[in-house]
């Protein structure tokens, strides 16, 4: 089949820059982590081979399981709140005029704030002595203290993430909605469709791609969250808000267990990768399935 084509190695030169960049910013650092994960040290820069012991320890550690459990719960709550809320906000936004630009700016604001500043804002906001929210909640008679009560800490951290990131989902959905041709709405009006039917059969199908992207971005980001909860709660009270990355930093820098931390980060990395891959494959598979059926039907 390729008899007429000569093998040409020049193409590799075109790929080389990308290979180099990826090697230096991803592959080589990752390999050092892999290197640590199979060795142990007693200090003095002396390392010895331990094989997969660290992985075995991480996978059987209750501490890791607990952090993973908190992480999964956090990410699930974030997704369950932010995706529908973002969608609802996008549906309610005005389509044109100065109001549309004003809302865009307001929505973009939280996205522009550095993460540790977001943490600081909420840390102060929730304080019971000088924080607007913390003091107010206590003033109306609800006992709230995120430094003492694990539930309050969770509420604060979730509220912060929702405040910080729902805008992203809303803006993505808004862009998706704007790309729907007007004729669809007009046809739906002529067909006598209810508001719900318009959402269900016109808007939702056309937002699918955008929602997949929003879901992936929010999954990855919330699963790897570190800065904001670290600033607000520092993982406490106790270990109540110690998510995977906070635990990882405690392990690597607090306890200096480099081998175990390296094994844990690899497991962590694999979890994110596999979930994203599974989700993406599942959604794109469905599409190709639909398309193949379509082609076959002709």
């Amino acid at each position, binding site marked *: 089949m390729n008899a007429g084509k000569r093998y040409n190695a020049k193409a590799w030169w075109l790929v080389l820059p990308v290979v180099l960049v990826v090697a230096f910013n991803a592959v080589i650092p990752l390999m050092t982590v892999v290197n640590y994960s199979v060795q142990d040290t007693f200090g003095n820069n002396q390392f010895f081979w331990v094989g997969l012991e660290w992985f075995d320890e991480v996978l059987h550690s209750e501490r890791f399981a607990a952090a993973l459990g908190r992480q999964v719960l956090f990410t699930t709550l974030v997704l369950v709140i932010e995706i529908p809320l973002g969608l609802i906000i996008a549906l309610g936004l005005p389509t044109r005029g100065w109001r549309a630009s004003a809302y865009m700016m307001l929505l973009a604001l939280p996205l522009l704030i550095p993460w540790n500043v977001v943490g600081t804002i909420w840390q102060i906001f929730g304080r019971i002595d000088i924080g607007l929210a913390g003091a107010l909640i206590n003033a109306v008679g609800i006992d709230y203290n995120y430094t003492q009560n694990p539930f309050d800490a969770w509420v604060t951290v979730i509220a912060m993430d929702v405040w910080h990131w729902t805008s992203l989902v809303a803006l993505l959905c808004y862009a998706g909605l704007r790309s729907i*041709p007007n*004729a*669809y709405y*007009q*046809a739906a*009006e*002529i*067909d*006598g*469709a*209810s508001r719900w*039917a318009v959402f269900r*059969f*016109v808007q939702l*199908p056309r937002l699918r791609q955008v929602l997949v992207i929003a879901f992936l971005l929010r999954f990855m980001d919330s699963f790897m969250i570190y800065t904001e909860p670290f600033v607000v709660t520092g993982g406490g009270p106790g270990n109540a808000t110690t998510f995977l990355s906070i635990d990882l930093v405690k392990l690597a820098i607090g306890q200096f267990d480099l081998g175990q931390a390296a094994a844990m980060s690899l497991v962590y990395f694999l979890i994110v990768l596999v979930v994203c891959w599974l989700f993406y494959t599942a959604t794109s598979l469905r599409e190709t399935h*639909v*398309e193949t*059926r*379509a*082609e076959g*039907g*002709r």
Partner: protein
Amino acid sequence: MAQIDIRQLSHTYQDEAYAGDDFALRELDLSWQDGGAYALLGPSGCGKSTLLRVISGLLRPTSGQVLFDGQDVTHRTARERHVAEVFQFPVVYETMSVFDNLAFPLLNRGMSKAAAAERVAEVAELLDLGGALRRKSSSLDAAARQLVSLGRGLVRTDVNAILFDEPLTVVDPQDKWILRTRLKQLHRTFGLTMVYVTHDQTEALTFAETVMVMRDGRILQSGTPAELFNRPAHKFVGQFVGSPGMNFIPCESGDDGIEIHGQALPLHIPRHRETHAGPCELGIRPEHLHLSRSTEGLAAKLLTVEETSRRKLAYLDLAGTSICVSLPQDEEIPADGHHVMFDSQHALIYSDERLLESAR
């Protein structure tokens, strides 16, 4: 089903409009009979789509009235108006099957599932979509999608009119013929009022019984395809309808007929009832001009010859005006000494871009 009347209809997309140019529609009046097939023909931006939106109820006009069977429906929504529209880009509900698409407008209006299924089967049969009912509508090609979107109008028994907004734009050329013929058949079968908006004269002239040529928010002429071709009421209609368009040659009215650039024309055009001061133009179709070597006609200089599938088109310079002559494929074009002859019975006189009715 209904007769549609438009009275003094104006529309502007601007918040404040004073000059005529600010209006997309300017004081339109028209009347469409129940069951007729009409076409709105005009260039982009002439207001034809705006007019369609106003009739379907998707757009409130700035002023004027829309009447269905004498009832004022100007302020009714599209849902209450009982019209269907087929859009330029095919609209199907992609996640639904063809069947669900067709049943959608019926179920939205509260029809029972069984009754809807029966009606859908009936209409699908007429549209030749019977075999595709179970298929997902996203799998259809453009022509089939347009049929589905037309079908959503046809299933409804309460529909007064079906409006088409350049429905063949994204349909493949070979499918256009089929779809156009299908539309004509359906028009006869259902006896619905159909209004077809297009900038393609072939589509307009083959589909409609009455064609309205629009420009700048006004209807310049309304008539049968033959009327538009043979007696364009406006210079623009002459140029827009026909391929190539009508020739317009500046002329003056002399004592005994018409003079072009001081040369008296050896053809007899009766005197005109109206006296007119402005400059006149003689309008004649390329099909009604001939080339000769005799000195009988007007001398002209040959510029180019264009071959088309059926006719030869010769472009000539006639005293500074470029004209087109359409010749049979086999006619030899002489090398020099060209003279243009006129079929006098087909020549029309225009003044101020409008046709002057002769006293004949």
